[in-house]
């Protein structure tokens, strides 16, 4: 998962890397006293924040208030900005580029370095100055790659990029990153360097071994709702569209994603993504109740689609838990369509029929989708 810039910088700062002094300001929290000028930076886990107007320099109190008003709550690439980082501007003479990325195909790490960074890193001239080196995921090999890349940098960039590269190698390994990108890397008038912006994609599966990363996420559960949920509950629920009309209770990441696509292609607005992992229920309806409550909170839910393809799990057991969960969430008024298929289907059908709770059960997914479309368009 991609960390917010603020947390990426603080994590790098924790290891002693130079980052500009800054604080996180979440929506609704009090604004403390600040020296001006200050840079107001939208915190969203996507690129192109500057181009979207999410980064502003404020020279006065009034400018800062205006910037906060404009940025907090704005939407960048579908992501609502719930926090900003207020940061001391840096005096720099040049903007360089440095990144380390896992290359999945070759199982190596790519080290990219360029004296020409900033937002123009994607253009032709910047690309021609880009130096690319490959290393095994091993400290010594990574450091050699940094040495090779920096040796090819122009005078004035060589020493700071070498040092920054070596320091980033340690951070990359420490935080088990899959991507660590510093762009821009500011080169200061005295030849020192400071991290201008940082992208850190940390590995959700390595949180147990990266307590500092985990602590950052747990400190801001509202900003990292999905990751915080995964740490706490070990399943996935992502609210995709606040005003979505179809709530999804689904298992399996790929099939859940596909269902969202199939519904969107037919003009529906899926409310959420969900991989509830039926295999981990262990006789407890808790997950189902929680997910149904979240869906019930959607203001525009017209129908709920449940889809369980049970490769191994027992559908009879799932049907029993589902009935308990539905009765525990009377606030959910929308009609329920349940598509069930797989292990012990007959028992599940019999249990639902005997109970009498109003669930439209289908075994064929296309039929279930048709039923959802009918119920969503009165």
């Amino acid at each position: 998962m991609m960390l917010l810039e603020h947390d990426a910088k603080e994590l790098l700062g924790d290891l002693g890397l130079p980052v500009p002094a800054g604080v996180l300001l979440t929506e609704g929290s009090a604004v403390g006293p600040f020296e001006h000028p200050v840079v107001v930076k939208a915190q969203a886990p996507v690129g192109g924040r500057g181009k979207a107007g999410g980064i502003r320099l404020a020279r006065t109190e009034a400018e800062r208030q205006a910037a906060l008003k404009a940025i907090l709550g704005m939407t960048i690439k579908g992501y609502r900005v719930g926090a900003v980082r207020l940061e001391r501007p840096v005096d720099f003479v040049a903007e360089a580029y440095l990144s380390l990325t896992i290359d999945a195909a070759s199982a190596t790490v790519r080290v990219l370095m360029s004296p020409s960074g900033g937002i123009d890193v994607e253009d032709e001239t910047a690309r021609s100055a880009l130096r690319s080196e490959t290393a095994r995921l091993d400290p010594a090999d990574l450091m050699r790659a940094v040495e090779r890349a920096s040796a090819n940098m122009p005078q004035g960039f060589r020493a700071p990029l070498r040092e920054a590269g070596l320091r980033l190698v340690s951070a990359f390994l420490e935080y088990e990153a899959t991507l660590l990108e510093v762009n821009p890397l500011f080169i200061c008038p005295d030849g020192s360097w400071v991290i201008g912006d940082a992208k850190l994609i940390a590995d959700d599966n390595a949180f147990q071994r990266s307590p500092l990363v985990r602590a950052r996420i747990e400190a801001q559960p509202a900003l990292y709702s999905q990751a915080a949920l995964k740490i706490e509950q070990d399943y996935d629920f992502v609210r995709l569209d606040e005003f979505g009309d179809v709530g999804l209770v689904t298992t399996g990441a790929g099939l859940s994603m596909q269902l969202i696509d199939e519904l969107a292609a037919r003009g529906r607005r899926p409310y959420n993504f969900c991989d509830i992992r039926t295999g981990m229920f262990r006789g407890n309806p808790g997950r189902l109740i929680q997910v149904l409550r979240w869906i019930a909170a959607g203001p525009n839910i017209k129908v709920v689609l449940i889809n369980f393809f049970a490769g191994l799990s027992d559908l009879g057991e799932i049907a029993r838990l589902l009935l308990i969960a539905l009765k525990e969430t009377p606030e959910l008024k929308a009609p329920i369509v349940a598509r069930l298929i797989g292990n012990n289907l007959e028992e599940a059908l019999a249990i639902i029929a005997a109970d009498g709770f109003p669930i439209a059960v289908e075994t064929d997914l296309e039929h279930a989708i048709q039923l959802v479309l009918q119920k969503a368009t009165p």
Partner: protein
Amino acid sequence: MTALIDPEAPILVQGITGRAGRSHARNMRAYGSRIVAGVSPREDEVDGTPVFRTTAEAVRNTGARAAVAIVPPLSVLETVKDSAEAGLELVVTLAEGVPVHDAVRARQIAQAAGIRWIGASTPGLAIPGRIKLGFLPSVSLAPGDLGVMAKSGTLSYEVCHRLVRAGLGQSLWVGVGGDAVKGTRFAEVAPIFEADPDTRAMVVIGEIGGDEEEELARMILERGLRKPVYALIAGSAAREGVTMGHAGALIHGDVGTVASKQTALQKAGAQVFSRIADLVSAVAAEAPRPPAFC
């Protein structure tokens, strides 16, 4: 028979004494897999199968050639290493949640040793009616001539279930898994399907994130693969920066989008679908024999 696994190969199960290990081992044997050994620090026997302390010992005593690992995610790297050192040809790991840095190291080890690693997180592979390594569901398996490779377990269950109902089974089904870094990628499975006389066409079940589909497209063009390719790519509605369940399913900038994957595969001559029903109809329409609907 395919180059990936000999259906007669003796198999060992790492982690056989756990709850999941026991039940998977039992199901695999019931399906016809030759389970000859288990590996675990505990017990000497499970359901009549001898259990050894190490993979190397199990291989020495039973001649096992492939392994299925039912071990916790943080033990996968060590298990791949043990499997490589024991001289196995293939190891399939089922654990969800293997750290990426472990997967990178395991892939380096596997490549250096020449062992085929399927995983990190996968429901496994199967030659329907012959052998199952992992837990692909029987309701979706049937002998046939489609080579199936998939990042997602559940989505492949759904697609194959519907293909099977349309009379279209599989020659070999390989779950490569949804991890960002994995043992075997689409581009490494495709040549196996291309060379396999029992495989007529390939079904690729991809999703957002990474560049495996694009790499597959390049490989098809560069090596001139001839067999028809039908692909389904999930995640059109996903947003940048949001992980869609699978650790690998993350769009970053314009890397990993459905559009990028569709375009690349179409240029390589593949038919790319966004709806399951359309893929099933296309495969059925082009099948050599009229399929028996039921």
